[in-house]
């Protein structure tokens, strides 16, 4: 897998959808890189969180992932 291309695809897709949706299930990322195995996509996504391009949101039971700083919560809770 071309990791750079995969990261770019993820960022472009998330930015495109950012008006209607700010948080995504991990499974949504599998669809963005359909030729790769889920495990490989998961590793790319988690690395992007470490690189502070994406961020996790957790309810405690489920985790969602979005572009860092997107959505209402960071600002509403003074976490930005």
């Amino acid at each position, binding site marked *: 897998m071309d990791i750079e291309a995969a990261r770019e695809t993820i960022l472009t897709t998330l930015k495109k959808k950012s008006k209607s949706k700010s948080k995504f*299930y*991990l*499974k949504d990322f599998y669809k963005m890189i359909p030729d790769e*195995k*889920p*495990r490989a996509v*998961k590793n790319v996504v*988690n690395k992007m*969180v*470490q690189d502070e391009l994406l*961020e*996790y*949101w*957790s*309810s*405690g*039971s*489920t*985790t969602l*992932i979005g572009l860092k700083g997107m959505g209402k*919560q*960071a600002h509403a*809770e003074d*976490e930005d």
Partner: protein
Amino acid sequence: MAKHETPLLDQLESGPWPSFVSDLKQEAEARAKNERNIEYQIPVDAVDDLLGVLELSFKHGRTHWKHGGIVGVFGYGGGVIGRYCDQPDNFPGVAHFHTMRVNHPAGKYYTTEYLKQLCDLWDFRGSGITNMHGSTGDIIFLGTTTPQLEEIFYELTHNLNQDLGGSGSNLRTPSDCIGSSRCEWACFDTQAICHFMTKEFQDELHRPAFPYKFKFKFDGCPNCCVASIARADISFIGTWRDDIRIDQDAVQGYIAGDYPPNGGAHADGNWGAFDINKEVVNICPTGCMSMQDGKLEIDNKECTRCMHCINVMPRALRPGTDTGLSMLVGAKAPILDGAQMGSLLVPFVEVNPDNDYEAIIEVIEALWDWWMEEGKNRERLGELIKRQGFQKMLDMTGIKPMPQHVQEPRTNPYIFWKEDEVPGGFNADITEFRKHHLR
């Protein structure tokens, strides 16, 4: 003098049992007095405000906590759960009140010194309120603010030799019974495998990897003290392949009343003399026990490892010596679909630390590959098994169907032949067939 009036909570203290309300009041008072001169890093009245917001929730009949958050420690996608109060002006002490899940030691063994260190850390940087332990098994630290998270994480990992646990769509903190450290029935070393799996699957434990939560639990014997069969996506339950060991002299000792049944656990009631037929033989669920010429006989091939006879007469009966574990899959609590108990997938597998539990890990990874590919968002493994079928799971794991997979023979068979498994396929010549088989 309490900060908030709490008449509804006070009522909860009136029952005969210890009350968490009393505990919270005690902690609120201790924080206010601060006899140890702790430099509290979160508001000193956090516990007062916690009582206040809980009282308000009782009054309104709805929660005043918001749902989830983006907080965590760097590089981890689990272990911290953002919690915020939706009445921050009235209860500023709990405006930010995050939960931290800390990986408990295998078997939940602590020294008192270690527990003191944990409590000191949490008094200093958190609310002082803990939940020992959460339902997954973790040490739960309830209530701190965002700036404290990295500090606590540093202290835990560098000075207390401990890590955060799992939350969100991660592997959850594996948990186990005390195993062979204290229990003669343990069929494998639960602590060794629990510790190994925790280390082996660090990435899955700390970063989201799955459609939803995933739990491992290790029970050393079928008594299932950590209830893995009811709540773990994969339960590992100790079992044996050979015969239950019988000491016939000890059986006679129980019959004669020399030994109290159940290790004396029911000795406080007047249950009369021990009756081996009434209390053991006749209530064996598979009817595989009998008394013949005064000797206890067990038809071991019919035994389903219910443990009842062994529990009642521990001096006389012991698990066999050819031990390993059974893997059951799909148990869950009723969040989306109904609650499910685990279904038996692997009746017996060796527990071999020398090859890094190779045979067990092979099954785990095959199940994960299937679930990661096919599981819907927020669908547990048990729900996927229900939706796509047990047979599909067998295909995906490469495990052949076997009699132990069938709960009730001849009632609802779910193992079907596929066309390529049938000689000649499904397009048999009916005329040719009828030549030999009349209608």
